[in-house]
C-alpha cells in the first residue's frame, strides 16, 4: 500500500468510518455511506458485523478461523486483511 494508508495490525480495532452505518432490511442488509451503498452477504457480512469497535483484527481473524475450520492456514487472515484495507481506502472502515 502506498501513501499514508494506516497499517492494519493484530491490535487494530476495525470499525465503520464516520458517516457509515447499517441500513436496508434484516433480510437484505446494506452498508450505507455518503453517496453509496454496498450490499454485503456471506463472509463480508460476518466480518463487518464484527467491526463494531469491540474486536481487534486478531480476534476477528480467530473467530472466522473457528467458523471456517477447513480453510487453509493463513488464507482467512489474508482475505480479511484485503477486505478491510479495500474498505479503508474507500473511507468505509477505519482502524
Amino acid at each position, binding site marked *: 500500500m502506498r501513501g*499514508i494508508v494506516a497499517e492494519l495490525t493484530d491490535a487494530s480495532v476495525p470499525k465503520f*468510518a464516520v458517516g457509515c452505518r447499517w441500513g436496508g432490511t434484516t433480510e437484505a442488509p446494506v452498508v*450505507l455511506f*455518503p453517496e453509496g451503498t454496498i450490499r454485503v452477504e456471506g463472509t463480508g457480512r460476518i466480518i463487518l458485523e464484527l467491526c463494531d469497535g469491540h474486536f481487534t483484527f486478531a480476534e476477528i481473524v480467530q473467530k472466522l478461523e473457528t467458523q471456517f475450520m477447513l480453510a487453509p492456514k493463513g488464507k482467512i487472515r489474508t482475505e480479511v486483511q484485503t477486505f478491510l484495507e479495500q474498505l479503508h481506502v474507500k473511507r468505509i472502515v477505519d482502524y
Partner: protein
Amino acid sequence: MPNPLALIAEITHRCPLHCVYCSNPLELTSRKEELATVDWLRVFGEAAALGVLHLHLTGGEPLARPDLAELIAGARQSRLYTNLITSGIGLSRERLAQLVEAGLDHIQLSFQDSSEGPANWIAGARAHAHKIELAGWIRSHRIAFTANLVVHRQNIEHLEGMIEGIEALHPDRMEIAHAQYYGWALQNRSALLPTRAQLDRALAVVAAAEERLRGKVRIDMVVPDYHARYPKACMGGWGRQLMLIDPAGRALPCHAAGVIPGMCFDNVREHTLDWIWQSSAAFQKFRGEDWMPEPCRSCDRRKEDFGGCRCQAYLLTGDASATDPVCELAPLHHLIEDAVREDAATGLAPEAREAPFHVLQEQMAGFWRYRTDPK
C-alpha cells in the same frame, strides 16, 4: 421493475448564492409554491417504503427552509440516510448542532475557488471565509464531511490550490465536480467549458492528489461529458435508480427533465411516490429501449449508458429522443465539437472580483449571467 435507490429533494429554490454554474432550471419555483413540512415528511416515508436508501436534501439552498431540522429528523425516522448538499450560508454553529442532533449523516459543502476574490466572482456572494470556518465546526461532530469543488474554465487552473486548501479542512471525501451544462450553466457554457488541454492538466492534478491522499480522503470525480467519447449514463438511466422532487412537489426522473416539452410530471400532492414510480407516464417515457433511435438501438453500449441524457439531447438538438450528442456516434455530435472549439471570452480583472453582487451583475452582463433568486 427495480426500486429507486435515492430520492433527491429540492426543498427550495431560494438561494443566497448566484453561482453561474448552477444547474437549477431557469424557471425557479417561488416560496409560496413550496411543499409544506408535512408533505415532505409523508414523501420521505413513502420513499423508504419504496426501497429508497439515500435522501439528498438540496435546492437552491436547503438551509433557507426553517424546518430543515424537522425534515432531517423525519427522514431519519423513516430510516433514510440523510445527506445535506449546501453552500453553508445560513448555517451557524448552533444550527449545525441542531441538524446533527436531528440525525444528519453527511454534509456536502460546496467550494467555488481557492480564495475569496474569485469565489465571490463566481458565486456573486462573499461566502468563502464562512465555509472555511464552518468546515472546522463540522469536524467537531461525528458526521461525514464532503467538500465539493465545482470546476470549470474560470477556476480549473487553480485546482491544485483548491485541493490543498480543502485538504487542510480534513474532509472524509472530496468531490471534484466538473460543471454540467444544464440550466444557468448552459446559458454560461462558453465561459465555463474548459479546453481539452485544461482538462488534461486537471486530470493529472487529481490523479496526483488521489495518490497522495489515499486512505485519508476519498476523491470522486465527475468528468465533463463534453470531452468524453461516450455519453454519461445520466442518473443511472431514466427512471431506473433515482427520483427528484422539485420544491413544488413535481416528481422528475432528473434535475433538468422539466425543460422537455409535452411532458406531464405528476405531483406528490396528488399521487403516491409508488404510483409515480411504477405507473406515471413521465417515468415510463424513456424507460427500456423502445424509444431509442439508431445508432443507440443496435449499439452494444445501450445497456451501459442508456443513450445518454434525454435532457441534454433536447437542450442541444431540440429532440429529447435523439442520441445524446456527446456520443461520438451521434448524428449531431458536431454540436459538441463546435462547443468545445469555441473560444472563451476573457474574465474579469482580479481587482474587480471582490465587488458586491449588483456591481458584478452589471459588469459581467456580456460575459455570463448570474443565477437570480425566485420571486
